[in-house]
């Protein structure tokens, strides 16, 4: 019996009748309350891995345990909430009714639902926008609604697939800060897929580095920046050291020519 929030053992996934290997030999244990980022170039299978944890696709091999049970059972028990790169809000529902959607599915009664939605609206700081429809909100606000929706039923685990990838840099940094506040307030475990090195360092307790074709874990870097992280965290020397360490891990350490690395950094 493992106490881990997520436990992956030798997980592999092949597509197209075994001709394309998305991920292979993935071993990972995530402890409750951790904030884990999965980072790697396009095609390294990080989104695939996230969907395997969410039981949205089936692994071809290996074992997946979420909250001490099978991924399938965890999904049926509502153990995780998920946020995609696009907010995927329902256009025909207002902000409140979008947040209430998973609660409706879980059969909560109306008064309980309303009370929880009100809490969630406050948590993501959207008070005053409750009656708006998605298309009346900015991209950042839409993503806050998506986060509120994912957390509305208090799942132990939050899966996030490049949730801020489509936002501008300033909005992204602000939402990074808010996500950490929400993470601290709710105490949930976060599995976070990203392309951004700075984002991964700023948010995570550990960063999982992946290589492409086939997707494998090449390195796991603990992030020892103190909590709570603030705007100033991004200006500390240790932050830059970790960014450099992560960048080198991503680019295969010292295997490459310095000139090539410089060119790629352009």
């Amino acid at each position, binding site marked *: 019996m493992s106490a881990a929030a997520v436990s992956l053992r030798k997980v592999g996934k092949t597509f197209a009748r075994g001709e394309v290997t998305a991920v292979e030999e993935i071993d990972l244990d995530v402890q409750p309350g951790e904030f884990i980022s999965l980072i790697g170039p396009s095609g390294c299978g990080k989104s695939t891995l996230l*969907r395997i944890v*969410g039981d*949205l696709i089936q692994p071809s091999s290996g074992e997946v345990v979420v909250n001490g049970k099978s991924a399938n059972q965890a*999904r*049926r028990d*509502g153990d*995780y*909430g*998920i946020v*995609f790169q*696009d907010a*995927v809000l*329902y*256009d*025909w529902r207002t902000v409140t009714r979008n947040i209430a*959607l*998973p609660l*409706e*599915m*879980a059969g909560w009664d109306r008064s309980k639902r309303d009370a929880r939605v009100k809490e969630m609206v406050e948590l993501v700081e959207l008070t005053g926008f409750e009656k708006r*429809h*998605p*298309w009346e909100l900015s991209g950042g606000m839409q993503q806050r609604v998506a986060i509120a929706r994912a957390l509305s039923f208090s799942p132990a685990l939050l899966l996030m697939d490049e949730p801020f990838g489509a936002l501008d840099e300033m909005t992204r940094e602000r939402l990074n800060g808010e996500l950490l506040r929400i993470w601290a307030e709710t105490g949930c475990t976060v599995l976070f897929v990203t392309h951004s090195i700075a984002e991964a360092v700023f948010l995570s307790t550990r960063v999982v580095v992946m290589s492409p074709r086939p997707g494998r874990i090449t390195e796991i870097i603990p992030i020892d920046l103190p909590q709570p992280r603030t705007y100033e965290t991004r200006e500390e020397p240790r932050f830059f050291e970790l960014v450099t360490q992560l960048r080198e891990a991503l680019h295969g350490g010292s295997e490459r020519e310095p000139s090539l690395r410089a060119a790629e950094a352009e």
Partner: protein
Amino acid sequence: MLRKGGTLLAVLAVLWGLWEGFKWLGEATELRLGTFTVTDLTMPHLHDIVGQLFEPSRTNGPLLIEVLWDAALFTAKEAAVGFVLGAAIGFAIGVVLHHSRLLQRGLLPYIVASQTIPILAIAPMVVVWTGSRGTPAWLSVAIIAAYLTFFPVTINTLRGLDSADPRALELMRSYAAGKWSVLWKLKVPASLPYLFVAFKISATASVVGAIVGELPSSIQDGLGGAILNFNQYYLSSPPSLWATNLIAALLGISFFAIVAIVEHFVVRRAPEHVA
């Protein structure tokens, strides 16, 4: 609103100008297109057509517009019942076919084939079948209208139910949602813009179906009966038939407009996604 009204008036003025202009030119030049010549018989003045509405329909009888108003209400009842019936059946068929690829492959060709049979061939059969069971004649007509209504609704239901965002489907799967929840909370709302395109087509088709359906069922009380009647007396009063056609067109437009108004309140979408 004011601008829309202005545009409408301008379009009407242009159409009036085209009709009357063609009539004037045709008469002045004694235009011949085959056997067609422009006379008051083939192209009555528009003001005569509108004026005819306010003439008695027969000696000492009620005004034509009163007669046509009653006929339009009668036909509207048939068309409305037919529309609702056809839309409900069309939607139900769409939902069933959406959930079974096998049924879709097996049945869709026959559903398409059903629409290639002319309504004029179907209508008498429906009248005979339903009439022999003691169904009121207007209900037979409603069934004929439903026959024209259901098809666009089925096709657009199929298309609309498939239009849900794949990630929205993943989201529903993450909630362990059942088929029924996915249908009513995601697929049906997502299909509404497609459904309303079908409803708009079907709304006018149901009026056509009702008018055509009245002919084989010998119904005298509707617009179909009126068209048949004024067709027989065309030589003595051409504007009466034209006026009846005008009322039939207005009925079809009203049906369309009602659907468009309902759509405005029911379909909540980003402005750029509204069909």
